């Protein structure tokens, strides 16, 4: 036992001494000046009914997004990826390149661990191809590792790129790294945000609250009062998804609908299907299904079919297989989108910045919703099942082959 104590003692001592050393002897610091605001939050998410409100919920932002959803965007109506919602333009002349040809564009990608990101990356590459002036386009893939993405960002900002596009893997944890990069070159953040406004522009669609609300309102409208709602979420703690749910929660709490279950599917269709099946046995019937993303929508639909029940009103996403099922099975459905065409915008933004043109501080993109009315427009036959319809890529060179379609 003494042996153990000695060792532990030694290790601790060593560790402490080391840290002390670190704090004292550090000469240069890349660390940003002030510390990022806390994203602290904990607590179970699956209590009775809708559970307590997510710690991510911000009333102000919620209201803002719902307001934005009502706005009509500026810019070419046929190119939603170039549109912007009431932009506050910001000057970028400081980044203007003497000769904006031979641009090297760099992109630190969180990863391609889901089809949405894969389609998105294809969009971005295609967009880059459209611009001859971009001579080099470097993509570093962090494979979902925050630590690696931080290093990637450091590496890229040390590499002499002209502009850096970042799609953060985690909001809170990437903030310091992005702050670092801001000092060195123009940074364009998109998709997920970071907790700093040092980026020249932050490209993203209206956002999760609007997404969640659209879906929830649809159910409130279609499902009879007291109807049983099943909410399927991907996984806890993912901000973009948390917002979707918390908005939906607000809507459901106001309505007379009864949310009987809130379950996490890990994005695994098999698990989703099992959950729905179990829910059916447990609650006899389900009158509506709310989803925070489309990955498992089809599985849910099938669960009802396999149980020999009619598919109730269901919300999905603009994923090909869901749209297909929607049309074939003539579902009562809605597909709010978190459009993949937003992957095109950062490239456009970067070029504008390097040309010294004004860009919005926060480039808010519209967030169209697929409804029964416009379903036909978005459902392109021959596209792969995991394709995302709202890619804004139909008119791009290489379509549909490069996107895996026929």
């Amino acid at each position, binding site marked *: 036992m003494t042996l153990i104590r000695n060792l532990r003692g030694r290790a601790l001592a060593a560790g402490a001494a080391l840290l002390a050393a670190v704090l004292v002897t550090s000469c240069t610091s890349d660390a940003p000046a002030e510390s990022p605001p806390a994203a602290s939050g904990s607590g179970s998410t699956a209590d009775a009914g809708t559970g307590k409100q997510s710690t991510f919920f911000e009333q102000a932002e919620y209201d803002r997004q719902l307001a934005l959803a009502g706005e009509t965007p500026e810019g070419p109506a046929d190119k939603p990826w170039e549109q912007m919602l009431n932009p506050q333009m910001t000057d970028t002349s400081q980044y203007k390149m003497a000769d904006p040809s031979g641009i090297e564009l760099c992109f630190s990608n969180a990863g391609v*661990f889901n089809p949405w990101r894969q389609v998105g990356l294809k969009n971005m590459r295609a967009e880059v191809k459209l611009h001859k002036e971009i001579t080099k386009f470097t993509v570093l893939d962090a494979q979902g590792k925050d630590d690696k993405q931080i290093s990637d960002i450091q590496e890229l900002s040390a590499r002499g790129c002209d502009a850096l596009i970042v799609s953060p893997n985690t909001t809170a944890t990437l903030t310091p790294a992005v702050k670092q990069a801001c000092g060195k070159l123009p940074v364009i953040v998109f998709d997920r945000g970071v907790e700093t406004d040092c980026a020249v522009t932050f490209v993203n669609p209206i956002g999760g609250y609007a997404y969640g609300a659209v879906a929830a309102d649809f159910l409130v409208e279609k499902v009879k009062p007291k109807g049983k709602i099943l909410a399927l979420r991907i996984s806890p703690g993912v901000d973009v998804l948390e917002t979707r749910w918390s908005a939906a929660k607000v809507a459901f709490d106001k309505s007379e609908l009864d949310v009987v279950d809130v379950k996490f599917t890990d994005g*695994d269709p098999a698990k989703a299907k099992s959950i729905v099946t179990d829910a059916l046995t447990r609650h006899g019937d389900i009158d509506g299904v709310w989803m925070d993303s489309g990955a498992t929508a089809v599985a849910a639909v099938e669960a009802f079919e396999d149980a020999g029940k009619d598919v109730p009103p269901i919300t999905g996403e603009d994923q090909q297989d869901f749209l297909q099922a929607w049309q074939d099975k003539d579902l009562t459905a809605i597909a709010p989108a978190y459009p993949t065409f937003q992957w095109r915008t950062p490239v456009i933004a970067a070029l504008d910045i390097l040309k010294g043109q004004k860009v919005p501080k926060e480039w808010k993109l519209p967030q169209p919703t697929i409804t029964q009315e416009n379903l036909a427009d978005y459902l392109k036959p021959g596209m792969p*099942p995991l394709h995302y319809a709202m890619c804004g890529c139909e008119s791009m060179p290489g379509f549909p082959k490069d996107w895996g379609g026929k």
Partner: protein
Amino acid sequence: MSAPTETPDTAKSAAGKAPTAATGTRIVRALGTGIPVYLLLAVLLLALLITDPGFYEPDSFLSFVKRAAPLVILAAGQYLVIVCGEFDLSVGAIVTAGVVVAAELYGSFPDAHWLVVTAILLVAGGLAGLISGLITTVLRVPSFITTLGMMLILEGAAFFWTGGSPQGVLPTAFRQLGRGTAFGWLPWAVVACLVAGTAAVLVMRSDFGRTLVATGDSDRAAALAGVRVIRVRTVAFILSGAAAALAAVLVGGFSGVSAQAGRGYEFEAITAVVLGGVVLGGGRGSVVAAMAGAFSLQALFTLLNLQGVSGALESTVQGVIVIAAVGLGAADWSRLRHRRTPPGSGPPDRTPPGTTHPTGTHNSGGTPS
């Protein structure tokens, strides 16, 4: 499946001349190392009955079995590998790759017959197993590493090939096996599960199965008895790979194309097998118990889900139960050996040579008897 009468041993003790052995002890012996898992399964099924009286209505019970089918098949395959003293960490990757590849195949040949595609998958799975097996047996790479590498390779290759998302849709015909029902009530998955289960039992009763276990027990003794150790072990890997491919067909059928169809299956399968009282390091345990272990896991998941337990605690409970079950087994085992071993004859070989098992020195634990 878990009925004692199906374990190989029962048949033997019946045929064998055990005049003194009372039926009770005979059944106990027949259940062999599986006793804890059968108890566990019984308890869980009972708990399910209490939680949800409707659970045992034919179709809801069948849907339970159908859901368990892939894991059961994986467990059966994993058992073959574990019982001869190896590991197969690549099964999860095979499932994922299988689903993705199937979709990709249909992308290129939309009207391929489902039997052809299924066959291709099974062969491919077997091939992956063959490679793992040969690397492990011939190159003497610990199977833990071999299959870990194989896992990386398969996942990487599948997605690299399909550019991350497969292009085709899985047609209804192909999905029948995982989704459809025979005569409108009996899910094909259940049939497949029964077939695979029976096949596994038959394999283990066959000469091959017996030599396989003997190899896991002591490959030196086996080799001196003329067993082609390398071949036997490799075949085990092949079967495991094929089983994983079959599981892929079921999973793909059940829930369609997904980029993460097989995530975590490798550990679930190993857990199931160990839960069934099979000793890591080989030589002990019955395939029926291993499959019962798979059912137990699935029952556990369902129960926790029905209980409304958040997915969170699910894994905690799983962890505790696994450790407890195995620990219990280990305890029984050592006690028993103390009582029964005649003096002079020490405990069996500490670390069977050729055991690629990471902690060979501890592997005498882990089996009740």
